């Protein structure tokens, strides 16, 4: 316990900086993966086989390889094309591209929970496919999809710790620094755990509350819950 307080007293500016960097990375990656995820989800259900295949390939490939491999591709792999990204940028890109696959699955389940008749009604009233998606289907699907997306945000906060492996200046990076600089390894990592829980416990309570609310919705929206994939 003394060690924990010692590390807190001497390294708190670094740890607080890391805390906010972790939050920032997670928020940027969430925004990015929402955009890519929605596009991929729409590709998967678009009325064109070739697009479905592209969407499916994206999801299947990224869900079945490790996040760290994706991040290494952005950090080390792009150097082969003369592109040197810093750890923060490469890590955030890796997290975004990886998380998008899980968000795509959640969004797809949400879209498919909206009754088919609504798409037909939209098309029959003269809206185009894209307009029906944009104005009728997506606004409703978003409500169903919020809890699983919250879950992905939770995963992002935890997964962003990989930035520490290539100088991404996140919470884990500064915890490693505090551990090796103070020689109080045990205290430093216990403190790191406390800082992470400070972010993740409220988030997981919030997600659970949202999930509970979803349970009171009509049966069809429960289909979306199948999509709470692990990150």
């Amino acid at each position: 316990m003394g060690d924990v307080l010692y590390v807190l007293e001497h390294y708190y500016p670094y740890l607080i900086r890391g805390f906010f960097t972790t939050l920032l990375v997670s928020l940027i990656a969430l925004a990015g993966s929402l955009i890519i995820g929605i596009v991929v989800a729409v590709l998967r259900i678009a009325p064109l086989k070739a697009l479905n295949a592209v969407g499916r390939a994206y999801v299947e490939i990224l869900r079945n390889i490790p996040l760290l491999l994706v991040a290494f591709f952005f950090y080390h792999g792009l150097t082969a094309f003369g592109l040197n990204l810093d750890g923060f940028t490469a890590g955030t890109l890796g997290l975004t591209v990886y998380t998008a696959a899980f968000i795509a699955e959640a969004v797809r389940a949400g879209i498919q929970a909206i009754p088919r008749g609504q798409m037909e009604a939209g098309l029959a009233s003269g809206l185009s496919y894209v307009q029906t998606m944009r104005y009728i289907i997506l606004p409703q699907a978003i409500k169903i999809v919020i809890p699983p997306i919250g879950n992905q945000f939770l995963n992002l906060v935890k997964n962003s710790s990989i930035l520490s492996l290539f100088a991404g200046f996140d919470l884990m990076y500064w915890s490693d620094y505090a551990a090796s600089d103070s020689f109080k390894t045990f205290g430093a990592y216990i403190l790191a755990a406390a800082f992470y829980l400070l972010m993740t416990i409220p988030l997981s309570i919030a997600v659970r509350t949202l999930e509970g609310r979803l349970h009171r919705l009509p049966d069809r929206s429960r289909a979306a819950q199948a999509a709470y994939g692990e990150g």
Partner: protein
Amino acid sequence: MDFRAALTPEHILFMLDGFRVTLLVAASAIVLSFLFGTVIAVLRYARVPILAPVLGAVVEALRNLPLLLIIIFTRFALPDIGIRLDVIASAIVALTVFEMAMISEIIRGGLLSVDKGQIEAARSTGLTAFQTLRYIVLPQALVRMIPPTVSQFISLLKDTSLAVAIALPELLHNSKIIYNANPSRYVVPVLLFAGFLYFITNFSLSQLALTLERRLRIEH
């Protein structure tokens, strides 16, 4: 980019050797986390006093921590309090501790999904609480848990790569050693090959899970 120079037989063998370590560590952690996860889930399901709430808090904390932190903690912080583990043992212990928390929640969910009426019926026909668990609840719960458990195992196989942080000689670690020799020429082919190995293994597992899920759904 030079596929022929990057993927020589020696390099491929070295990467496959890393994949062997990945599979070994993942398989050990899968077996152990399933055993511990079941015990935790049953203790919490049975609401054993003191133990159940304590385990609940531990599971909650573990699930909300980054696995990377748990791996680094096991390898570098535990020696501070006198527990020294080698690299492979650290990786297995860390993955087991994290995954048992995840799997115990899946198992608990499965147990809770069994209708209360069945338990009451079993108890009123004279079965003990343990017999009810063993013959009525567990067989049904286990069947329902198969699909989420398989996805959890896929995560575990992927997550083993986080042990590069403690220099576990697994697939991603060995891949890094190879491409570091000549990054601009080797990195893309080596990462593609590593990704291919992960992909075919996990994709096969997920297809297996889908088949199982479909077959079970037909039974009901």
